[in-house]
């Protein structure tokens, strides 16, 4: 994973165990049982405030390093597919959110 840019990590993220003391929100997006490799995961704060967005990885995976608190995860994919989930993040925890479109 790139550590000094603002962009997506090469090839999107692969979902795996992470990252010590950080507040991680990660998961996979599937549609009809298959990973959604083209699409976007957005992390939103209170009042739909945009926080971050990543393209989904080949395995439909995404990962955010959030601040502790309550967030909204929104997924966008071609064909107007979308989904939204409420998530909680805290330091030292990896919050898993799997999304089926």
């Amino acid at each position, binding site marked *: 994973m*790139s550590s000094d840019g603002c*962009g997506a990590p*090469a090839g999107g993220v692969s979902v795996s165990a992470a990252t010590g003391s950080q507040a991680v929100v990660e998961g996979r997006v599937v549609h009809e049982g298959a990973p959604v490799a083209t699409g976007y995961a957005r992390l939103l704060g209170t009042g739909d405030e945009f926080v971050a967005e990543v393209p989904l990885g080949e395995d439909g995976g995404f990962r955010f*390093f959030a601040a502790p608190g309550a967030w909204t995860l929104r997924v966008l994919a071609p064909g107007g597919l979308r989904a939204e989930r409420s998530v909680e993040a805290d330091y030292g925890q990896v919050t898993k959110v799997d999304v089926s479109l």
Partner: protein
Amino acid sequence: MSRSDVLVDADWAEAHIGDPGVVIVEVDEDTSAYDKGHIPTAIKLDWKKDLQDPVRRDFVDKTGFEALLSERGISNDDTVLLYGGNNNWFAAYAYWYFRLYGHDKVLLLDGGRKKWELDSRELSSDVPERPRTNYTASEQDASLRALRDEVIAAIGKRNLVDVRSPDEFAGRLLAPAHLPQEQAQRGGHIPTARNVPWSKAANEDGTFRSDDELLTLYQSEAGLDFGKDTIAYCRIGERSAHTWFVLHELLDQPNVKNYDGSWTEYGSLVGVPIELGDGR
């Protein structure tokens, strides 16, 4: 300069695929996106490998830019259409960069790669061969780029626009939430900066909001004084290039600079003032 001179939609791009004189360029940090599929005929620029100096913290100099564009087959007369991922952050950065080196025939694709993908438009894996050119760049246009001393001198005097997320602005995060939290030595923001996250200028599909919405955002809501000069910054200068594009190119504000050193520089400087906490 106005919106129609600098921004085109996907239909325009589709209609100009293969046009001689139009070079479509995908700009990303993650160039594996290009490798998986790109707008037909597009070539790629790697934000880091191609545009940043490999040794010093700076972007490539004039000679380096000339060598890069010559090697990629871009000539001075070409219209360069830029697009990329991350809601066009890196494409906007490249746009700023092309303008900095005097290339005026440059356009940004509204919505970038994301809208193209969400619209299920054609992507190609063919990598075009473009014949070498002999590109000549101008000297850097210093009116578009702010360096650190100018930024410090601007505190309380000019508009400073911090385009990072509210959590980064307040000092709770040091980087966007999709990246590990590292980088600058200190969190916070430059005193007197207004926090207008870049994302407020964009719709969900990555396209820019309308001019009226943008004017309301920066003037009425954020309280920027358009009678003053403006400096935009973020963490490494690409999100602020997006805002620079909005203010300077779409809204036609004359004196807007991008501080590409941004928070990774400012937040590591010794002795400069820092403010913590949320914006007003």
